[in-house]
C-alpha cells in the first residue's frame, strides 16, 4: 500500500510541477504586457492599444507568431526592435510628452505590412493647449486628389549642377524656401522662362536652372535621410527606382480595374505612383507631395505616414523624391 501511495505521489508531484511552472509563468506574463505580432492579414498586433502615464516606463515583451516583424513608435527617437518568430524581445519605452502615439511594424512582412499599427495613449497633464498646426497643403488650399498633368516636360533629365554652372542671376523671390514649398517645378520654369534676364536661355537650360533652385532648397544630409526612409518604407511598393514597380506593385494593381465595382474600403488599391513620370511630378509642389505622404491615399493602398514620420522626415522624403526628376547628387 505504501508503494502504491509512493507511486501516486511521484505522478502527482511530477504533474504538479509541469503544470504549475508554466501556469506561474503565464500568470506572470499577464502581469506585464506581451505583445503578439502577426501579419496584418491574420490579426496584426495584439494588444493593439496601450495606455501609459507620461514619464512611467512601459515594459513590453514582444514575440511573433508567424514571420519576422519589427517594432518602433512613430515620432519617438527610439531604435526599432526586431521581433523574431517564437522568440521574445524586450523594450522599455518612456514618454515625456502626453498624447497619442502610433507604433508600427518595421520589417516588411506582407503587402499589408504598413497596416500593422497600434496606438499608445500617453496620459498626463497638458501644459498649454498647443493648437495643432494644419499641414501646408491644407493651409494653401490645395486639392491633392485632383488630376494634375504638366503641360510640358523637359526633353532631357534636368541637372542641378548644369544649372549651377549657368551662373545666372535668379530673382530672389524664386529662391525663397516658401516659394519652393508652395510651387511646382513647372511653375518655376514658366516663371523663369518669362524673366527678361533669362530670355536667351534654351528651354532645357531653364529646366536645369529650376533643378538648381530646387536643389538649393535641400541639403545633402536631408536627401540622404530621405533616401534611407524611402528604401525602408516606400521602395517595396514604389520600387527602388521610384517607377512604381516595387515587389508589391502587382498585388496593389489588382484593385485598379475594379474602381467602379468595389466601393468597400481598401479594395480600390491602385498601382503605386511612378516618381519618374515627369508629367505628374513636375506639376506637383512639395506641399502637395508632403500632403500625400502625411494623409495617405484614401483606400488606394498608399499608407498615411503622418503619425509615423516627423515633419522633418517628410520633408526629407520629398527632397529625395525630386532626385527622380532632377539630377541631384545623392551621397552614399
Amino acid at each position, binding site marked *: 500500500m505504501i508503494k502504491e501511495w509512493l507511486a*501516486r505521489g511521484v505522478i502527482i508531484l511530477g504533474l504538479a510541477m*509541469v503544470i504549475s511552472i508554466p501556469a506561474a509563468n503565464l500568470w506572470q506574463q499577464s502581469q506585464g504586457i506581451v505583445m503578439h505580432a502577426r501579419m496584418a492579414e491574420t490579426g496584426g498586433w495584439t494588444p493593439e492599444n496601450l495606455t501609459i502615464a507620461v514619464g512611467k516606463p512601459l515594459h513590453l515583451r514582444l514575440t511573433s*507568431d508567424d514571420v519576422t516583424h519589427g517594432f518602433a513608435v512613430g515620432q519617438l527617437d527610439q531604435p526599432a526592435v526586431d521581433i523574431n*518568430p*517564437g522568440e521574445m524581445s524586450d523594450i522599455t519605452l518612456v514618454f515625456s510628452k502626453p498624447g497619442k502615439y502610433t507604433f508600427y511594424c518595421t520589417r516588411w512582412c506582407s503587402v499589408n505590412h504598413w497596416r500593422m499599427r497600434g496606438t499608445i495613449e500617453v496620459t498626463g497633464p497638458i501644459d498649454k493647449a498647443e493648437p495643432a498646426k494644419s499641414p501646408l497643403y491644407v493651409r494653401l488650399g490645395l486639392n491633392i486628389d485632383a488630376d494634375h498633368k504638366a503641360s510640358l516636360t523637359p526633353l532631357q533629365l534636368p541637372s542641378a549642377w548644369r544649372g549651377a554652372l549657368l551662373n545666372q542671376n535668379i530673382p530672389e523671390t524664386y529662391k525663397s524656401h516658401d516659394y519652393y514649398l508652395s510651387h511646382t517645378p513647372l511653375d518655376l520654369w514658366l516663371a523663369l522662362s518669362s524673366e527678361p534676364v533669362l530670355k536667351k536661355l534654351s528651354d532645357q537650360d531653364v529646366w536645369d536652372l529650376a533643378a538648381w533652385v530646387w536643389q538649393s532648397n535641400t541639403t545633402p544630409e536631408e536627401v540622404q535621410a530621405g533616401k534611407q526612409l524611402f528604401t525602408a518604407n516606400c521602395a517595396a511598393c514604389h520600387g527602388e527606382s521610384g517607377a512604381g514597380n516595387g515587389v508589391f506593385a502587382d498585388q496593389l494593381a489588382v484593385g485598379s480595374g475594379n474602381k467602379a465595382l468595389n466601393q468597400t474600403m481598401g479594395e480600390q488599391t491602385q498601382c503605386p505612383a511612378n516618381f519618374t513620370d515627369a508629367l505628374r511630378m513636375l506639376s506637383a509642389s512639395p506641399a502637395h507631395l508632403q500632403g500625400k505622404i502625411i494623409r495617405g491615399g484614401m483606400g488606394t493602398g498608399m499608407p498615411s505616414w503622418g503619425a509615423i514620420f516627423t515633419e522633418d522626415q517628410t520633408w526629407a522624403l520629398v527632397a529625395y523624391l525630386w532626385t527622380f526628376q532632377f539630377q541631384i547628387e545623392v551621397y552614399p
Partner: protein
Amino acid sequence: MTRLQESLWVEEAATKSTLSGSSERYTIPSRVNLYRIPWLRAMLESRWPQFLARAVTLIGFVFTLAAALFGSRVGNHNFAIIMVWIAWWTTLKLGFIPFGGRSWCSICPIPLPGDWLQQGGILDKGSHKNGFNLRWPKSLRGSWLQSGGFLLIGLFSAVTLTDPQVTGWVLLALFALAVGMSLVFEHRAFCSYICPIGGFSGMYAKAAPMEVRVVDKEICANHRDKSCYHACPWGLYPLAMKDSSACGLCMECLRACPKDNLALNLRPYGSDLGGHISSSRLDETFLALTMLGSALAFSAVFVGPWGWLKLSAFEIGSQPWVAYATGFLALNLLFLPALFSLCVWSWKKISQNRLPLKRLVASHAQGLLPLGLMSWIAFTISFALPKLTLVLGVLNDPFGWGWHILNATNTSRSLDVSGFSPLLQVILLMIGIFWSTRVTMKLSKSDGKHNFPSNMPVLVFYLVYSIGMLWLLIG
C-alpha cells in the same frame, strides 16, 4: 544459454522447445532469453523501473500538451511540435521499432490513466475493477480502423505537424478517447484497435528482433490457472501467440507466471515473417500498403522540393487540398493495392497456384513489411535527422516565452546530413528490397514451389517502389 546466431538471414527459427525437466529447458535455438540475464531480470521483475519510465513519459506528455496549447504558435519553437514529431518520432522509427518491435507501447503515456482506472491502482497490476469491461465488437476487430486512422493523419498532416495548437488538440483527443475506451471496453481496446501508431508498430514488430514467448508448452498445458492471460492488459494468451503484432511488451505475463515459463527473447530479424500462408490477414495487407503509400506521400510533401504540393497539403478545405486528398487516398486505397494485387496475380498465374487470390494477396503482404520498415526509417532520416538541433532550442525555451533553461544561446544551426544521409538511405532501401525478397522467397517455398523467376512480379513491385522512394528522398 544459446549463442545468438548473428546472421540476419536465419529465419527458420525452431520455436518448439525440448522436453521439460532436462537442463536444456530454457534453451531455444536462435533465441537468447534476456530474462535469464540477472540484472535485466531484476529490472523487469520489479515494477519500479517500468513505472518510472512511464511516469516520465506521462509527465512529459502533460507538459507537451501544455506547451502545445499555451506556448508559442511558431511550430519550430514549440516543445510539443519538436519533441513529438521530430524527437519522439525519430526514437520510435530508429529505435523502438527496429530494435524492440512494439516496445514503445510498454511505456506509452496515452493509455496509462485508463489502465489505472481499470485496475483501480497505479503500481500493482490488479484485476479489472472499474469500467464496463465490454468486449470489442467483432466487426471492428483487426487493423482496419488503424489504417483509416493513419490515412486521416496523412490528410491533415501538414497542419498537424506544424501548428502546435492542432497537435495539442489531436493529442488531447486521443488521450480522452483512450481513457474513455478503457472505462467502456476491456483491456487496451484503444491500443489494439484504434491507435494508428500501435497499428504499424505491431505490424513491423513481426520483423523486429524482440519477442515474448512461452518457453515450454508442456508446462502451460498442465497449468490450470492461466495467470499469464489474467495478467495481460492486452487480453492475450501467451501460449497462443502466433506472432508479436499484438503484444505490447509490458512484461506482466513474465512477472505473473508462477512457473517462470515465459521468456523475453532476442531473435533474428524477420522471425515472424514468411510463415504459413494462412497466417496473414487482409487487414494487415491493407495496413502494410497504406504505410508504403504514406511513406511515398510524406516523402513527396515534406521532403520534396514542390512548394505547390506542400501548399495544397497545408491549405485544408481549399480546392488544391481536395485534389491532394483525392490523390493521397487514391494512391493508398486504389493504386497501390491494385498494383500489388496485380503482381500477386501474375505470380499466381506463373506459378499456377490454385489458392484464391485474396488469400495469396494477404499472405504476400508479409513481404511488404521489411520494405515498409526500411522506407520509414529512410524517410525519418531525411525528415527528422536534420531537425534534431531544434530539440536543443525547445529544451532551452519550451514555450517560446524567452526562457533560458539550458543557457543556450545560438540554437539555430541545422544538422548537415547531406554527406552521409543519401548513402545511408540507399543502403537501408537495399536492405529493404533484399529482405522483402527473402521473405517472399520463403513464402513461395513454404507453398512447395521453389521457383525464383515466378516471384518476379512481386519483386518488381518492391524494386519499383524502392526506386520511387529513393528518387523522392535523394534524387
